[in-house]
């Protein structure tokens, strides 16, 4: 099992290095970094100075190694727009807002999704099942930017129950977390419903019933335990959906997280921040997938021998 974990960690590191290559070459080869960094009003002397400072007179290979070396020590350069702050510092200051929002959204969607999925499977083909499937279908189909605007209009503008935007109080979390979580809620409901239906018809559930276990134990212990495995396999995907969704949801609700930072820095062409934020988000992505792989090994003993 240790071997598998080590392999996964090495694979994750390779993926991260590959991603740094993609980001580096995308931002170097598709545009002139000097023009992007300096803007329109720069003189020839400014350009030459910046070229030397950035090491752009070196070969592209040396440039990449410098970029990678700096990135490893946490140096992504300074933000061009936000008061010359170091890019990484800026990101770290915005990270708690994003992580807390994604955490709240994920916790609620897992709880509600499992509940809805189990209810729908136990009352297969009844009104409860139809309702759960309808919620799942809408959640799977609704574009989050529009859902955010509609929820804001109904609950903040019309009913005045919740604030339109802001950060700090628990009320501020409700609308953004609901918007961010609906897709995942739909996905978990579908997953749990279909694997519960499968589990309830299986041999080991029949055996558990024959042994005389209570219905409560059969459903919530035996059937659910196996039905949760597919949910765990998809946790990496859900996290990815949340991170990508964060860019949109944070922009709609003016949430001070890294999603909105990414959006704003890209629009204002603040390239040091852009590079750093894309790399940090990808790293979060890869780490989440790594943790899911390891978690998978822990909960499903069959996987340990396979690798």
């Amino acid at each position: 099992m240790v071997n598998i974990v080590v392999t996964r960690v090495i694979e994750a590191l390779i993926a991260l290095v590959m991603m740094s290559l993609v980001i580096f070459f995308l931002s170097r080869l598709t545009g002139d970094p000097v023009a992007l960094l300096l803007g329109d009003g720069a003189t020839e002397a400014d350009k030459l100075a910046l070229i030397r400072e950035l090491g752009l007179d070196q070969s592209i290979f040396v440039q990449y190694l410098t970029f990678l070396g700096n990135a490893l020590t946490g140096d992504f350069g300074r933000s061009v727009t936000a008061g010359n702050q170091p890019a990484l510092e800026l990101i770290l200051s915005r990270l708690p807002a994003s992580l807390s929002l994604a955490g709240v959204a994920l916790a609620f969607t897992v709880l509600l999704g499992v509940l809805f999925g189990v209810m729908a499977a136990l009352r297969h083909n009844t009104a409860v099942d139809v309702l759960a499937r309808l919620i799942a279908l809408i959640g799977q189909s609704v574009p989050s930017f529009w859902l955010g605007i509609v929820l804001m209009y109904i609950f903040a503008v019309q009913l005045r129950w919740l604030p339109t935007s802001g950060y700090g109080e628990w009320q501020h979390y409700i609308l953004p977390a609901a918007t961010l979580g609906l897709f995942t809620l739909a996905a978990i409901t579908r997953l749990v419903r279909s694997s519960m239906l499968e589990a309830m018809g299986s041999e080991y559930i029949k055996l558990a019933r024959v042994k005389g276990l209570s219905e409560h134990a059969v459903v919530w212990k035996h059937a659910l335990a196996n039905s949760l495995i597919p949910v765990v396999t998809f946790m990496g995907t859900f996290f990815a959906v949340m991170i990508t969704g964060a860019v949109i949801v944070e922009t709609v609700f003016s949430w001070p997280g890294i999603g909105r930072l990414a959006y704003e820095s890209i629009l204002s062409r603040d390239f040091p921040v852009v590079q750093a934020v894309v790399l940090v988000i990808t790293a979060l992505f890869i780490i989440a997938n790594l943790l899911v792989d390891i978690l998978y090994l822990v909960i499903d003993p069959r996987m340990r021998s396979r690798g």
Partner: protein
Amino acid sequence: MSELTSGSPPRRQIVRPLIAFWHSLDWPLRVAVGILLVFVIVALLGPMIAPHDPLKGSLRARLLPPAWQEGGQWEYVFGTDRLGRDILSRIIAGARISLTVCVLVIAIAGTIGTAVGTIAGYFGGWADRVLMRLVDLALSLPVILLALLLGAISGPSFANIIIVISLTLWSQYARMARGETLKIRNEDYVDLARTSGLSDLRIIVRHIMPNIAPALIVIATLQVGVVIVLEASLSFLGVGVPPPAPSWGSMVADGRSYIASAWWLCMVPGMAILITVMAVNLLGDALTDRINPALRGRNI
């Protein structure tokens, strides 16, 4: 020998299976198929059925509410935007944009993904390992960020969104194509084709691809909804289809600041996205159930 193994299969009938398919659908699915037919026809006919020019507004008809509201006119069924442009005509033009993006992305991503997946599955070994690493990498790309990055570097363009969305979606075809190829690559008819001296390319194209096609068609169907939402999201963020082309996403963005006074600017394009994507997903789920039941509920 080659006529024996590579002769084209007998032409299948097209109309009768379609009618049988329609009869096998329950009513929600029939509604979904109907909605999709309307979407495709509207997108194809586009300018021919739009009552007004989607790009030119009339300043005397600014911010008119939908016809059934007080002050609305039947000339502008879904009302007009702040430049006096007819919302219905813009929705119709937006349908064409959505459909074009869907067709192009699914063609590009499907071709690349299928090629990579069948090659990895058929040859195995190091080709498989390298290609599948590439697939994993593609899966770890944050789509929206990549699109924003490209959009910021070269400005919003139609080509950019096609590239970015294809870049993130091809890997699903590759995974499926590889899995399905692994299942059949040691079947008797593939062995027979190999021993009769057919080239690998010919075996893949003539004998493997037709057999893995159903599974790939399911993925393509499920991706239609994903592509529509992604395109709309990117256009909403200002890095999708460049203005003034009326993408459904940029229409929502335009109407966002008028939500309290002119709700229809946001609601109409949003509902267009929601209804179309719901119809596609409903149909995609039904196809999954029929063609690849093992994936039921797992196609996320």
